[in-house]
């Protein structure tokens, strides 16, 4: 392909470089270039958020970004939530609180939740509802997603206080 450019992006802690056309969407680079299919495509129009990833810690919808826009930056996808074989608290929360049914929105919802908890470790129900309001879930009615995020916040807090004790 003509007009390719080299990009280098830290994905889940690991530097990944490749030649891409400037028009390549970030979500396609992740899914088809790196095989990271946990980032989903649900709507193509930035409406559903199934493609949400963290760009330097901030949630972005990867269907509305070019891969080249992420050049030199750090991305976290759902595959990067788990650390050393241990589920992230937000993953525990969605699993334990029935925060998912079909699970298609789950990676995006978890990344929104993880970003929220970085800023606000003890979010109210209203805080969580606002934080996830840019993403759609068609199965759960959101109530168990809220519970899942709050579960994760409590878990992180208790681990933190346990570590300090």
């Amino acid at each position, binding site marked *: 392909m003509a007009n390719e450019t080299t990009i280098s992006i830290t994905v889940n802690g690991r530097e990944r470089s490749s030649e891409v056309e400037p028009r390549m969407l970030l979500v396609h680079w992740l899914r088809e270039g790196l095989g990271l299919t946990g980032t989903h495509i649900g709507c193509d129009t930035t*409406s*559903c958020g199934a493609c949400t990833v963290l760009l330097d810690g901030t949630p972005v919808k990867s269907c509305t970004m070019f891969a080249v826009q992420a050049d030199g930056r750090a991305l976290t996808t759902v*595959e990067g939530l788990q650390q050393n074989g241990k589920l992230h608290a937000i993953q525990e929360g969605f699993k334990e609180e029935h925060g998912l*049914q079909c699970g298609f929105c789950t990676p995006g919802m978890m990344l929104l939740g993880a970003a929220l908890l970085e800023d606000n470790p003890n979010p109210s129900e209203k805080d969580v509802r606002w934080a996830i309001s840019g993403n759609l*879930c068609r*199965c759960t*009615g959101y*109530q168990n997603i809220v519970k899942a995020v709050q579960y994760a916040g409590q878990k992180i807090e208790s681990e933190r206080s346990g570590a300090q004790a």
Partner: protein
Amino acid sequence: MSRASTAPVAPPVAPPKEGVPVQGGVGTSALRPDGVPKVKGEFAYSSDMWDEHMLWGATVRSPHPHACIVSIDITDALKHPGVHAVLTHEDVAGRKTFGLERPDQPVLASERVRYRGEPIALVAAAHPETARRAAEAVHIDYEVLQPVTDPEVALDAATVALHPSGNVVRHIHIAHGEPDPEADVVAEATYEVGMQDQAFLGPESGLAVPDGSGGVDLYVSTQWLHVDREQLAASLALAPEEVRITLAGVGGAFGAREDLSIQIHSCMLALTTNRPVKMMYSREESFYGHVHRHPARLNYIHGATTSGELVFVKARLVFDGGAYASSSTAVCANAATLCCGPYEVPNALIDCYAVYTNNPPCGAMRGFGAVQACFAYESQMDLLAAKLAMDPVELRLRNAASTGTVTPTGQKIEGPAPVAELLTRVRDAPLPPPGSPGTPDIRELPGGVSNATHGEAVRRGIGHAAGYKNICYSEGFDDYATARVRLSAPAGEPVVEVHTAAAEVGQGVATIQLQIARTELGVEAAVLRPADTSIGSSGSSSASRQTWMTGGAVKTACEAVRERVLSTAAEVLGAEPGELYLSNGLVMSLELGAVYSLAELLGDTVVEATREYRHAPTSPLDANGQGNAHAGFAFAAHRAVVDVDVELGLVKVVDIATAQDVGMALNPQAVEGQIEGGIAQGIGLALMEEVQVIDGVIRNPSFTDYLIPTSLDMPPVHADVLELGDPGSPYGVKGVGEPPVISSTPAVVAAVRAATGRALRRIPMRPDDVAGLTDRSPAGEAPREPR
């Protein structure tokens, strides 16, 4: 969620003898087996299917809702570098048409297109973009015809017939009781329901892999593997065993995956090119690629005595089936048979039509005919209550169905029908605190930050509704599910393996199957094999039937395995099998306690049983719409509390209280998830969700313009779950998935009516309707209620 048992569950088959309950058995909120892969991002959805050598398929679709095809020229498309095949109707090897209930839909259109978006040609190419570009290079000449888009016009005998059979897909006439009864008070109105989309998040997609000897393996998201296979085999001219389907990860369904989308097309391309072929619709294509909920126009006349006893219901219901039949005949039957609501109605005269038009095809969506009817009959109950100057809940209680009630088809309701109790519970549920007067947080106002006022025109309204739904398939259909259960001890520990073709679409049937196996065999280690067509059919994940049906099949197969294990143990021990039971990996004796480890008893043997389960037979409807058409009924009630900015027409649902009889909650957490998710779709239909079709063209085929409730649109849900036990089902279960979506919609509309005083007879309600700037209530109704 609170749970209440006000009557004992009466299971038809005695459960295994008491022991220490196994971890993760029935009645516990066992975790989903797919939970960990889903939170890790490792779960493979149909859109994630991949093969190194695969090609990508694309579909050429009609830009016209109604046209004759004059010619199709694929020459230019074939010239595109990277294109491997371009196929048309001439390449359909077998039956040229398909369809769930009648094969009236072309696999690829040949002479005539009947809706905008109808598939005409297919392309396979090395890259998805190449496939799309080549699809644009397929030249089709049309003779454009006037589309028939109004179902009433379609019913007119003078209108052009869209199919050889005419424009009526089905007409059901129900005549019950006295033909011309007299009532003291009469309420008449006409209601309209817009076209709703299932709006699952995971687009239609899959991978077809040729097997090199003429057959094909398909990995696809669907709701019913075996009915897909039947249609595929017919159109591909293959034997059923040459078409093997495995369920790929399903990103939601809600009815939209009952009909075929990419199935035949991807297999045709794969068999032609002898390469794996992946297809995946964009969201826009998805709006053309699956059926929607039927729009409907419903005219009702209710008659009652002055004391509020229903005397009759007369109704004429017209459902727009769109271009092809899909499941319109069954939707029509549900609407007709359930259209009087969960009430004692001694006399009924019903005509229900499903009609062909040139609108997008309509078919299955959660609630399936019961949704449209419930909006109308519950609106009628409120209208009647107003005419009688009676409390709307009181009117419903006075007429509430109960066990033994005879429905308008002459069917006696055999199981629990706790309509009065459900209504009383939601009526008496604690109310949310009143909205704070003064200067509220703008984010808390209806419309949130788009509310430009200080809330001075915000009024609160409360509405109630009840509804019911048939569970499982009806009208004499041979409804069954198949399960294979294998018990073995491969590494010195007992393991039970369950295999069915039940489609896990998110609802949790995978969890339920394992819970049943654990409980019935007293073995915690339970694994589920992937759902595929190497086992018999489980029927569809629809009609709220899988827990009942596939659950019943797994339970029956487990019972057969248990019987064999216990008779072996009895032989070894010289005991009676009836004195033994299984508990937590042990063979237990009533007298002696643990007598054997199950693993020890099994050794190298594998005990396996395959069983089919059927619910009690149902009957077709006769010429007067009479018959025991349904296998069972499920009931729910909802109370909605809303805040309405009556000047801006903005609505905020503040609180939903619901009560539902689920028979038995095999997994309380999953029940809660179904209830909350269903209510979200019910609120969506009341307030925002409509596929807007003008002159046969969808104007909003995207999630930017087709609105779905977000986390801010959804209020807290307070669910009161009753477990009254159905006498005809395994463990007494009823279906859970559909009732939440049925009566939540009319409850919200009733609450908005209470806040505004407006008639609001069309859903979804738009802000300008709510504010009184327009009145899209269909003509021919009684005047507006006074404010």
